[in-house]
């Protein structure tokens, strides 16, 4: 259990949130022009980093807004939280 600082509601328990996987994956502009392998790469393949990762999260049991988070997957330390459309505060 850990606390997440929702950019809209403030600090809440992790049980109110749901994880949405890796962030900043850009959807191809012309999906019909991609091969099956390229489409599968976009759709399924993720980095699955052990360490600091940029992730999407949803405050599912609160304001229901999506936002981004910089989280260390090995110790659950949250380095930053930022809104959708904003650039990550750290690289």
């Amino acid at each position, binding site marked *: 259990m850990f606390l997440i600082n929702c950019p809209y*509601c403030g600090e809440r328990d992790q049980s*109110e949130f749901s994880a949405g996987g890796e962030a900043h994956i850009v959807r191809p502009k012309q999906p019909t022009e991609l091969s099956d392998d390229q489409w599968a790469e976009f759709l399924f393949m993720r980095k699955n980093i052990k360490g600091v990762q940029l992730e999407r999260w949803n405050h599912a049991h*609160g*304001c229901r807004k999506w936002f981004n988070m910089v989280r260390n997957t090995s110790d659950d330390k949250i380095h930053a939280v930022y809104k959708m459309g904003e650039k990550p505060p750290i690289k």
Partner: protein
Amino acid sequence: MLNYNSPIMDAKNYSGIKISVTESVIKINLRGKNRDFITKIGKELSIIPPTDPNISSGNEKLNILWLGPDEWLLYSNDKIDFKNNNSLEDRLFDQISKVKLGSVTNVTDHWVMINLKGDNVFELLSSGCPFNFNDFKNSKGAVTQTLLNHIDVIIHNKNINDLNLFVRRSFSIHLWSWMNDSARFI
């Protein structure tokens, strides 16, 4: 025509807690993003929807709860006037939805409002809720959306130790049973 029937019509008293569901009050979900939307709501209802999170605004007849940066719940303090029950919704629909400023949805039958009163209400809520009520319980008008016994709820701190809790109709009987069961052990 909506069927304004609450699945629960009951009131229970426990040590320092009174839980009750009375007749339906009108509940309207408001969604809009621009400043004109907020201005129009303010003109129509004489209440400005709060833009700061986790608070509410209201007068003697209506309350507007902040649910998100572009979403609010409007509910009345008075019971539904069955002869004239759509006038508020119709007025807002004409002024907001029809001119595409935002959306107005009647959710009277979607949410069941449970009133909790007494010195031990936060003891009851804390027994099944991950939310920290330390600041909330002393802030009149505070609003939170959280989980209670794993069920989504909206809690409005109307007065000190006087809360209105909104739960989805389909979960209301289960939550009502849980609250009554838990209140016995507070």
